[in-house]
């Protein structure tokens, strides 16, 4: 009995060691903590690996989840690169002093308003907040003039959002930056009464499309992405851009940064350089991702409303505070 158990125990522990070893043995290539949409990043990774031969392992998750995880992991994190959909998570990680400065050549490729001065991270794509609605339920005249209108009592039960997602939390962080804590707190309280929660912007769009709710606050690219597939979740929706520097016209920057603790700093820098370079930004235009390109001289997909026409409010991406947003949302009972 003893002999047999010992031998089995040895077998089991060697299996376990093999497992942990296998995780670490992906030593060639880089680990990217990715919060961006998978299909977009996949196209980037495929192109990058084809060009340079460097393998990329993705860990997928949400902005804040991965951001907080990086903060918790600290210097021992296995991550080399962090990609996000919005900027607050980049700020979070940067405040924990975890990013390494990016190569000057990388920074030179991105338009200045889409990257912070300090150069420890950069924008890689952008998306605009948008009001999606079902024209059968809302006429043009009834459309809200500002994001703040949605707090008014007449909008009770008529709009939806995905508060647990980092996307919406980024929009709230812009609101916080533009209008201050008190106004944001009030707006969130009214939101709790008026809105319906869904999980994910796609679900919001689908529900508006089905006519189950009048409208929603999401990002611009969802209807376009769906339209490029079967279109069954976006046939009946229309987009309304708030413009006029309203908080609802907020353009969120997706970010990329290289971790200071990275074991492959050079390959990591190469990756960020590639996606902000011509080929990476070209993918934004051609690959049905429908997000805005932020490279110098890069054109976005022709179907989209040009960035300059959006009249987005000026928000310094490095000032967005996700921690405070989560606090306020928890206080309002949204989380």
């Amino acid at each position, binding site marked *: 009995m003893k002999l047999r158990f010992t031998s089995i125990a040895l077998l089991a522990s060697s299996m*376990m060691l093999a497992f942990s070893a296998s995780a670490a043995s992906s030593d060639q290539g880089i680990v990217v903590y990715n919060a961006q949409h998978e299909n977009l990043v996949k196209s980037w990774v495929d192109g990058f690996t084809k060009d340079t031969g460097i393998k990329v392992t993705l860990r997928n998750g949400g902005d804040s989840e991965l951001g*907080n995880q990086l903060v918790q992991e600290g210097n021992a994190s*296995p991550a080399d690169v962090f990609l996000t959909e919005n900027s607050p998570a980049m700020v979070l990680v940067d405040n924990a002093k975890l990013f390494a400065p990016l190569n000057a050549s990388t920074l030179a490729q991105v338009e200045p308003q889409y990257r912070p001065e300090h150069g420890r991270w950069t924008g890689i794509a952008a998306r605009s907040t948008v009001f999606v609605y079902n024209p059968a339920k809302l006429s043009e005249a009834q459309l809200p003039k500002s994001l703040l209108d949605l707090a008014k009592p007449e909008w009770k039960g008529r709009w939806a959002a995905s508060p647990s997602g980092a996307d919406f939390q980024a929009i709230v962080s812009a609101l916080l930056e533009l209008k201050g804590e008190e106004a944001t707190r009030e707006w969130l309280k009214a939101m709790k009464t008026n809105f319906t929660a869904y999980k994910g912007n*796609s679900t919001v769009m689908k529900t508006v499309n089905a006519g189950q709710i009048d409208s929603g606050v999401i990002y611009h690219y969802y209807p376009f992405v769906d339209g490029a597939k079967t279109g069954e979740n976006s046939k009946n929706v229309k987009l309304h851009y708030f413009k006029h520097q309203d908080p609802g016209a907020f353009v969120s920057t997706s970010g990329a940064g290289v971790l200071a603790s990275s074991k492959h700093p050079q390959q990591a820098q190469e990756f960020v350089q590639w996606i902000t370079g011509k080929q990476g930004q070209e993918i934004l235009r051609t690959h049905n991702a429908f997000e805005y390109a932020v490279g110098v001289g890069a054109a976005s997909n022709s179907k989209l409303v040009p960035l300059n026409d959006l009249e987005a409010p000026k928000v310094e991406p490095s000032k967005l505070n996700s921690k405070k947003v*989560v606090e306020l949302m928890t206080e309002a009972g949204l989380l």
Partner: protein
Amino acid sequence: MSNISINAAPVLPSGSVARRYQQRPGLWMVVSAVLLSLLALLPLGFVIGVAIDTGWQTVKTLVFRPRVGELLLNTLLLVIFTLPTCALLGVALAWLTERTRLQGRRIWSILAIAPLAVPAFVQSYAWISLVPGMHGLGAGVFISVIAYFPFIYLPVSAVLRRLDPGIEDVATSLGKRPLAVFFRVILPQLKLAIWGGSLLIALHLLAEYGLYAMIRFDTFTTAIFDQFQSTFNGPAANMLAGVLVLCCLGLLVVEAASRGRARYARVGSGSARSQNPYPLSPAIGLLCQLLPITLTALASGVPFITLARWLYLGGFAVWDNSDLWPAVRQTLTLAASGAVIITLCAIPMAWLSVRYPARLYRVLEGCNYVTSSLPGIVVALALVTITIHSFRPIYQTEMTLLLAYLLMFMPRALINLRAGIAQAPVELENVARSLGRTPFQALCSTTLRLAAPGAAAGAALVFLAITNELTATLLLAPNGTRTLATGFWALTSEIDYVAAAPYALIMVLLSLPLTWLLYSQSKRTAGL
């Protein structure tokens, strides 16, 4: 999934066996059992530790707020409406299939547990595809009932099958009409089975994430998840986990206390006579067919039809998905290695509790059971924090994931292994030795052979559980690991139902043989 098989130790004469063993069990065996049980207490310790760390003020603000009250209310309502409905349906269906001459009752008894092959979140996915507007408490209760009623059906039908008809005869001879006999004599004997099944369902209701997330019904687990996505493992997430743990412990206490002192098994020697099934008149028989037909259609029919529809729409293209087959491979690897490792780890505890019954070992065993009652998300949260802060080398490796599975699923292996070892009393080994075998040979030819089916059943249950596990895997999977469940979840989050269908189908197919195992196992044991 379920601890249905056998929940109580086989009845051993406590004093005599212990006295018969003058020698003590091997030291390393005791040590490993103690270590594993202490390990099992990690999540509990974690929750308490974090609460202490965060400070009473913050705990107060995070726990005593309207949102938590909202979640508590939702959870309470869910449990209050789901449990009685499941009990009613489970008992009614069990009665029809075990004690009447219902047409096709053997087929119905198999179909009654078919929903166990469909993971709860796939059930939800199927219904959302059919009725997109489904949401809230009503939808939550409905889907929970059809997904979980087999947990009551299985033990109740096992007990009904073995009830002593002599007792019912006596009750009849004492002047009680058949209906009175059912309520005063038969139903009380089902109490333990119903109670055990209800506890299991309640714990699942508390722990389930995917089902409720898809229909937008907020429970503690969905809220913890949301917090996790926003703050990774900030204090709010841990506090919610703490409240959830309290609810689970509360359920365990309530169930244990309400068992009462009465015995529920047959009293007296001799074996039970075989039962006489009640005949049903053709009209009533037809009416009674409605119950199994409806339940099967809702619980098995809808998922299979929806899956078929999505697969048809997707055509062959979805099967060409470059992520699908790696996910299958990884799921199978994880499940297989998990099953083997966890069953092996259960050996010391099972061996000790059968061969050397003593209070200490019962307490150790109890630790394992308590932890397995905790939701996967609590275990995962605990492990994430502990490994990040104290055990870096295994952070984000398969080992942590397997550790989580160990904490969550060991009791399944433990229970079955214990039943298996109990089949092989030590006398058999002694007889083998008297017939000329060495102690090791005797062990192999008797105990291991007899215990093997029990061990296999335990391993199979663990395999099944790991294949369908979503929550802990979402939190703990190493970089690049994608199981069928997490892949399915990622796709449905993007509303890509068509691409998600192959994942769901494979998960169901993997679960079918093991569901069959559960069925045949319940036919052999009383399930009490």
